């Protein structure tokens, strides 16, 4: 099993009242799955994704990732864990504006202290694979949305993660670009990468092998 969430609660206190963002959430993910998380606005989809990605904390419950008890780990240990195994893809791409395409893709490798020649080879592979060799010296603002998201995915994949977390990856794209991105995800999944995506679109959700529905922070099994 890749990861398991048990009885996860997350809340915020506001005006003396407690609002639940996640309420007794359960989830088991096997390696190689392609999961789509769906649900209305405010149902906690992104929160769940951030909890899985260890970017966000939760208040109660158990989270095991590759048999490591995440809820007991120190911040640094957690960071090492997600650095090693998880890649993020964002709706708004979130590329670093001051870096070129090449440098954006290279940055995660810098944090993993990978040698220069190896970095060059890895980034070149990635540029090649996504057909963006010609754009490697451009800055994000010089690219279309679809191209930016390609770079975002390339950057997420460069460290060879086991798991890709994608928060509405096609939300800012037109339907044709969106389709291309989803095809890419499908292909990656077939190569063995586990993917969890948050989406509003039924059509995109269909690309996944399993759909999780969220309502008011609770997972509703279908």
């Amino acid at each position, binding site marked *: 099993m890749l990861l398991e969430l048990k009885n996860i609660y997350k809340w915020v206190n506001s005006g003396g009242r407690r609002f639940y963002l996640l309420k007794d959430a359960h989830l088991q993910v096997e390696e190689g799955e392609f999961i789509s998380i769906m649900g209305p606005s405010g149902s906690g989809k992104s929160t769940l994704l951030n909890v899985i990605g260890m970017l966000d904390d939760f208040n109660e419950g158990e989270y095991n990732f590759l048999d490591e008890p995440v809820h007991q780990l120190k911040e640094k240990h957690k960071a090492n864990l997600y650095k090693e195994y998880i890649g993020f893809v964002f709706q*708004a791409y979130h590329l670093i504006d001051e870096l070129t395409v090449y440098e954006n893709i290279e940055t995660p490798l810098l944090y993993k202290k990978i040698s220069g020649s190896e970095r060059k080879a890895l980034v070149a592979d990635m540029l090649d694979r996504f057909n963006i060799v010609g754009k490697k010296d451009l800055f994000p603002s010089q690219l279309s949305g679809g191209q930016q998201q390609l770079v975002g995915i390339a950057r997420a994949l460069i460290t060879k993660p086991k798991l890709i977390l994608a928060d509405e990856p096609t939300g800012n794209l037109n339907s044709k670009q969106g389709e291309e991105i989803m095809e890419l995800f499908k292909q990656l999944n077939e190569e063995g990468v586990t993917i969890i995506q948050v989406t509003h679109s039924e059509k995109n959700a269909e690309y996944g092998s399993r759909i999780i529905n969220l309502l008011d922070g609770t997972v509703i099994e279908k």
Partner: protein
Amino acid sequence: MIKNYFKIAWRNLWKHKVYSFINIFGLSIGMAVAVMIGLWVHDELSFNDYFSNKKGIAQVYQSLTYNGENLTYNALPRPLEMELRNKYNDNFKHIVMSSWNTAGYLEYKDIKISSSGSFIQEGAIDMLNLKIVKGVRNGLAELNSIMLSASTAKAIFGDTDPIGKTIKLNSEHDMQVTAVYEDIPKNNSFHDLNYMTPWKLYVNSAEWIKNAADQWGNGSFQMFVQIADNTTMEQVDKTIRLAKMNAAPDDQKAYNPKILLLPMNDWYLRSNFENGVQSGGRIEYVWLFGIVGVFVLLLACINFMNLSTARSEKRAKEVGIRKSIGSNRSQLIRQFLGESLFTVSVAYIAALILVMISLKGFNTLASKEIILPWTNSQFWMLSLGFILFTSLLSGSYPALYLSSFNPVKVLKGTFKAGKLAALPRKVLVVTQFTVSIILIIGTILVMKQIQYTKNRPVGYNKEGLIQIPTNSPDFYGKTDFMRNEFITSGAVVNMATSSSPLTDVWSNNGGYTWEGKPIGFQDDFAFIMVSPEYAKTLGLAFVEGRDFSIKFPTDSSAVILNKTAVEYMGLKNPIGKLMRDSNEDDPDPPLKIIGVVEDMVMQSPYEPSKQTLYVIDKYQASSYYNLRMNPDRSVSTNLETIEKVFKKNFPGLPFEYEFIDAQYAQKFASEERVASLASVFTALAILISCLGLFGLASFVAEQRTKEIGVRKVLGASILNLWKLLSKDFLVLVVISIAIASPLAYYFMNQWIQKFTYRTDISWWIFLLAGAGAISITIITISFQSIKAATANPIKSLRTE
């Protein structure tokens, strides 16, 4: 990784040119000020470093008590020399008696120059470790020998060998040149020791000096010592404390004489004495400017901090992304520190250029000869340390702040910067303006004090007066003749001589008795010997009595007092009273008081005038001619004529003169230097603070573009918006004024206490500083707020 950081740093700098300019320009000004002050402080602290024995050298001082008031000075009696040599010799390596360094004429064939030098004992050569360029090391062994500094030798002999040549000193002594020593650099005591002649010659040259050998009360000489290797300055200082007390006669013991050492280390920076104890001196200015330098640098660093945190919203996204793709906080901290290191390095290069450009002006202002030590490795090490220090100072807070962002919040876009950093930012702005306002108030007060003192009546008319030094024996006895010569030439309306320059007092006298003198009162007067036309020439007004007159031959034993002397002596009706010498054997008749004149400011313009006695110079052996030039002719014609008359009568002497008003103005040189340096630094501090404010204002205007747009659509006028945007900053400046005013009052009150004649710290200074700060603030931020307020709201709303 580092490369990546620098790339980002560089692209960020390039992308946000206005911010970068403000950052780098502000930092470089701050750093330039710090470097310049650093060089200045180093120069001050390295005074006298030329002397390798610096640590062991001291000047001997004596401290005497008159009527409970303590005076400490370096004028010593001759018998102290033998006392120290006989009883305390083990403590010293060298004991060196010296005359005062005075102007003298050197003459060789038809070359005549006026120079300055001393009669000094031969121990000086080894004590000062003088570097002999030519001739023998001990060049003072013979009575008629003279040692010249290299530049003096060059001035007289050019490139010919001076050794063995005979030159005439003060038209009096034939001296043989025995040695030439390297010039002593300007940044040292003795730098004006252009020649040295044997002390023995001095002793033989005048009766009064010979007689001084056993006069413990005749403090007219200087003494320098180098202590023995096996002892310490404190030890020797203590050992010789009572040397005079134990040996002097009873009338001297009454002044409770104490002997003390002022180490060479302290000559320049800590030479003030208060009640017989060393109490600072120039070192206070070194501290003051050191602190100012640190503060100006701090102001620039605050700009950096404020602009970095204000722009955090822009950087927040990058922080979030980096964190989500695997950066941990320490890596981000390193990245941001790296960026500040980069910015600071660029700013330092700019700062060095600024220093290069302004060093000449700074040297003029500070009267220094400072150069940038390009080739000194220590300078570069310090520079490196300075860059690191500034980077940490300015970069730590932004690095900690920026790296703390939560990636989920910033990436979701719910993150609003500013709120979190607003309070520290406000505190920093208040700090900046507090410092600037304190500097403004301080500068205004220093200037006010100088102006106040300059306006002090000096008691005589100093315009159109010149003085000619008359130290050569050639002048003796010729006063009346020369006066007549000058007046008939038409260039001069009156002339009088004096034994001290008009702007100083060179001799003091005491030991008089008079009717009603309190028992045990230890009197002490400034003692000026003058020619009878002194008061008329100067325009010195009489309070009562009459001036000296050639009609009364008895005026040779008459005395004129100044107003302060009358009060000092406690006289009700001074005219006609007698002043007798306490020494009953004194052959001279008592002095009869014939007149009282207004006080003249001769010494410090910040202190009350000293009680003064003016008597007739019977021997016509004055130190200066004071000439009142003809006001109906131009100054240059007058000077030409005077020079002609002078040359005609003293063909062997160079014609030298000084304007009295210029000489008087010299008294303010040190304070004026402080004032002009302070105003430059204040201006720069304000500039830096305004740069920061400008940056912040533009940031706020940018941040509130949407709000401004909405308000405008709802009907807000430009004035409304301008008020809205300016208010927050004005509040901060008002708070700064409230903090700065009492602080400035406290510091400046302490500073001004050292002047007896001082201006008051008026309320308008604070008003002026406050109004100035507020108007500068309004001007600075209005530029941005008006720009924001007049922008088309449709544009700003559409961008959302």
